[in-house]
Each structure stands twice: as C-alpha cells, then as structure tokens.
C-alpha cells in the first residue's frame, strides 16, 4: 500500500498564511474582540433581574405569553444556579458570531440564488464547512487568532454560516417561476424583482436559516470553550475534566434553556412575518 498525507500541505498553507498575513489577522482580532467584549459589558452592566424582565418582554412581544413565561423562569433558574455571567458571555459570543455569519451568509445566499455558477461553486464549500468536524476549525483559528474569544467567534462563524446561505438560496429559488415571470412581465428591474418579490416571499425560509444559524452558533460557542472562549462551555468543560457531575449538569441545563429561548423567539419571528 502507499501513503499520501495531505495534512502537511495544509500545515504549510496555514504557516504561510500566518507568516504573511499576521497584520490582517491582528486587525480582525482587535475589531472582533472589542465588539464581543463591548456586547458582554452591556449584558453584564445591567442587573440580572432587570435584563431578565427585558428579555421576557421581548419574548412576549415576539413569541407570546408562553415563551415569555419560559424565558422568565428559565433565566431565573440560571441566576439561581449562579451561572448568569457565564450565560451572558455565551450569549454575547453567540450574538456576535451569528450576526457576522448572517451578514456574510445572506448576501452570499442571494448571490448564489441569482447566479448558477456561484451556486455551483458555493455548494461544495458549504458541504465542507458543515461536515468537517467542528473541532477541526479550532486549530487554524487558534493559529491565526491565538486563544480566547476571537478564534471561538471565527470558528463559530464558519460553522454556523452554511444554513444562512443555503436557506436564503433555497428560499429565493423556491419563489414560483411564474410569479417571477409576472414580476418581469411588468418591467421590474432585477433589483425591484429582488426586493419587491423574491425576498418578501423567501422571508420565512430565510428566517428559518437565521434560526438554524443561531442554534449552530450556540452549539459551536460551547465547544469553543476548549480554546478558551469562556462562558457556559468552560463550565461544562470543568464538569468533564474535574468530574464535577453537578456542575456539568447545571451548565448543560443552562445551555439548553438559552437554546430553547433563542429558538422559540427566532422561530416566532419567521411565523409572524408570514401571516
């Protein structure tokens, strides 16, 4: 048999990138870091109870009474378990990463929907991004951005972006052909077609992508505690490494509560729009 390792080539590529583009990476790192810590500071500046009430009100407005009650009780439990600061740190990282993933992913999805060549190129890249085990992103992320929140955010952006791209692409392509033809037959420009017809009709699907992106971001943020991103993930990690079953369980529950709240609220966002 023969051996063929493509790993060393990848290593060389990463080395070359770190050697030649360290300035760029540093800049990205600084921008991201200030953004994430800024968000953290805001979330931790307000007393937890006030923030919980605000969250519950937002949940009420968007998703109704049940979700509001769940938000209130869930967050109170987290406060009770003394995991509030970690939860807010995780939330800040999720919000920052998901925002970046959406800002990059939705326009990319629109582009892919309007251009078959782009779609052809993007699709395998997305497959790669989604199926590569999430831990693998952590290695180059650390090499480029050192340890801490920033490589965590970068790995999260990469991991959570595919559904935003895919579902935006899908949503626009699913707009019935004759509806697109109708819009064109009245002399719509491509821009009018996009904003007046395709995007509004695709909105529920795109919001499903937003929801998926946020959920994936949350799961990746927890994993990226392994490279020092902090938050609830590091509590889970502590539970595992130090065999603290209670702590591991509590922080695991906190992640689930956060996930459910984010999920219900973003899902409701899609639902109300389509009504």
């Amino acid at each position, binding site marked *: 048999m023969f051996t063929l390792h493509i790993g060393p080539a990848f290593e060389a590529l990463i080395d070359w990138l770190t050697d030649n583009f360290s300035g760029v990476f540093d800049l990205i790192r600084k921008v991201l870091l200030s953004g994430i810590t800024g968000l953290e500071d805001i979330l931790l500046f307000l007393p937890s109870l006030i923030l919980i009430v605000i969250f519950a009100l937002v949940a009420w407005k968007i998703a109704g009474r049940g979700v509001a009650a769940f938000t209130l009780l869930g967050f109170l439990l987290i406060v009770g378990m003394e995991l509030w600061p970690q939860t807010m740190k995780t939330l800040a990282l999720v919000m920052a990463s998901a925002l970046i993933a959406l800002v990059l992913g939705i326009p990319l999805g629109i582009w892919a929907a309007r251009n078959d060549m782009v779609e052809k190129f993007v699709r395998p890249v997305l497959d790669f991004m989604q199926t590569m085990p999430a831990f693998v992103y952590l290695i180059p992320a650390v090499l480029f951005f050192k340890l801490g929140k920033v490589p965590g955010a970068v790995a999260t952006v990469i991991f959570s972006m595919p559904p935003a791209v895919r579902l935006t692409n899908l949503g626009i392509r699913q707009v*019935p052909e*004759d*509806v697109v*033809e*109708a*819009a*064109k*037959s*009245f*002399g*719509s*420009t491509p821009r*009018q077609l996009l904003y*007046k*017809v395709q995007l*509004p*009709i695709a*909105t529920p699907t795109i919001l499903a992508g937003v929801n998926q992106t946020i959920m994936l971001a949350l799961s990746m943020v927890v994993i990226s505690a392994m490279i020092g991103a902090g938050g609830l993930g590091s509590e889970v990690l502590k539970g595992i490494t130090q065999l603290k079953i209670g702590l591991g369980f509590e922080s695991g529950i906190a992640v689930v509560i956060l996930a459910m709240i984010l999920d219900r609220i973003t899902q409701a966002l899609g639902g109300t729009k389509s009504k």
Partner: protein
Amino acid sequence: MPKIEVKNIYKIFGSRPKSIFPHLEKGMSKDEILEKTGHTVGINNASFQVEQGETFVIMGLSGSGKSTLIRCLNRLIEPSAGEVLIDGENILETSYQELLKMRQRKLAMVFQRFALFPHRTIVKNVEYGLEIQGVEAQVRREKAYEVLELVGLKGYEESMPDQLSGGMQQRVGLARALATDPDVLLMDEAFSALDPLIKKEMQDELLELQAKMHKTIVFITHDLDEALKLGDRIAVMKDGKIVQIGTPEEILTDPANAYVKEFVQDVDRTKVITAATIMRKPDAVMSPKEGPRVAVRKMEEAGISSIYVTGKDKYLKGLVRIEDAVRLAKEGKDNLEEVIIKDIPTTAPDTPMVDLLPVAATTSYPIVVVSEDNKMLGIIVRVSVISGIIGRGD
C-alpha cells in the same frame, strides 16, 4: 401597420442553437434533432401579424411551443432568430432599458396559474405594475380600485390572494394586467386552470370587456372551443410550427392538414358554423314580372316544387309553390302576386347553426339567408344543416 408583427421567429433550446439551423433547413423533424443533437426546437419559423383591437388565439397541444411563442413577444424568452415588431419597432433590438419601458407600458401578461404575489394584498397586486413605473401611491391606489371594480372584485381589495377562489384570483390577474392600461394583453392559458363553468363565465366577461376596451389580445389555449369562442383569428401550432392561421370558420371548414382536421373533429360545430357557410345558391329564382307559366317551367326544369321570387337587386319577395302556379296558369291569370307566400323562414348570414336547428326542424321550406336590407343571399335546405353538423361539405 399591424400592432404586432412576428417574422420568422425561431427558438431552439440547447447549448448551441445556431448549429441547428442547417438541420431545420434540411427539414429534419423536431424529434430527429432532439435525438441527434440534444437540442429542443421550441419554435420553428413562426410568422404572424396581429391587428390593433384583434383577439388572436394561438392554439396547440402542450409541447407545441405556444407558451414559448407568447413569451417571445415580451422577451421573457429570447428568440434564437427572427423579428418581433410591436408598433413597427423590433423589440429584439431594443436596449434593456427600453424593453423594461415597453413591458411597463405596452404589454401586460396574464398567467395560467394566476401568478399573483402571495405576500401582497389584492389591491397591492393590482398596483404592482404602476408601482414599478414609479406612479404616486395615491394615484395608483385609485386606479387599482377602479380596475378591481371593472372585473367585479369590489370589496376584496384588502384580501390576500390565497383567500380567493381560482376564478376570483384570475380576475385579479386580469385586473393587474389592465391596471397599467397596456395596448397588448398577452394571455397564457389564462382560463385553463379554472372549472368549466367559471371558465365559461370568464370567457364571456373577457368578450364583454374586450367589446369596451378594444385591446390587442394574444390568447394562448389548448382548448379548441375556447379558441373558436374568443378568437377573431386562430393560429394552430404543432411541433413549434404554425400549421394554419385563419378565422374560426376557416379553421373548421377548411383545415389545412390532417393534424388540424383531427384537432377540430370533436368540436361542437353548430356553435361556430354560420348560415353563410352552409347556404347554397337556390336552384331557381324568378322575377315577379314573369308569369305563372314561366314559374312552372323553371320549377320543372330544376325539378323542384317551389321557387323564390326576388325583385330588383335580389330583394326577396317570397316563394311560389308549383301547385299555385299551375292553378293560376289554368285560370289564365298572369299576375303571380296573389299566390306569393311571404311568410317564409329567413335568417341573417352570421347566425350560428345552433340557432337554425329549431327552425329547420319545423319549416317545410328551405331557410332563406338574407342580408340586412332583405336581399337574398342563399338558401339552406335541411340536408345542408345536417351535413354541416357532421362536418361534410356538399
């Protein structure tokens, strides 16, 4: 100048459309070309003209290229070769900006599956074309209300499309197309997705609207009855080719080839074929100045038992039976007037056969076809009514 003039349009789907023209010139069939080259011939050298105010129906089975053809008229599909002139301007050569203008102001389209915008209210659907043109909100809202009332949807302005029945949705589709006041309406199987009764209702309404609006309409259908009902002229398509263009009656009575013949076989001919088509020349006519003896002789020569009497310029006076003429001759009287039967069945030339049937069933004389000023144009004997129904010429 015709409103729309299509000259030698081709549409070939595939990677190298131009390479197919030599094959077409050699007369290769659509199937052969598909098999040998993988290219689909959508339209093969179609030409026609549509006059201002005319309803032009393009009819054919699915796959005949009719939907492709109508999309070439507003360039939703780009023809591979040929010219499409609208008001004398070749739209295949205009810039993209001009094309958009043309679509905004001159051409509007109605779709088979309605193709309403599901996220917009009815009135906002109807407004769409005006919105694209940048018309002020207030003005376009008023216009939309007006058009919705015209198609009988007053009160549904703020509903969503999925709250309406199919027939109502297509009214919205029609209203949306009419809102921009286009010269040309392109209707792609517009009524094909509707229930038979609703379909008939919509056809009647379109005819009614058209009588007021005088738009130029290009109407696609696979339904012959619909084509015959709506079309001033009909083009029959097969395998991307136009095989015949003519008025409904021409298509029915004089099919260009076996394909058209087969197509028109099952049609309810009585609704389309008119008195003018099945009438024939009377065997004999006479003037009232001619006496009974002449009448008898003429009838004997022609082997008939009654003769029509016409005055100057074929003005119909009536009919004389042979027994009355013989009686007059025996009595030695010269004037026919007293025995002319004036109460005979007459009809106008554009009366459809379906309306002639009850008359033909009860009268013992042939039906006389007369013009508006009562001039005799021809007669219809019972046997021609029957042969007209079963579609055999004399």
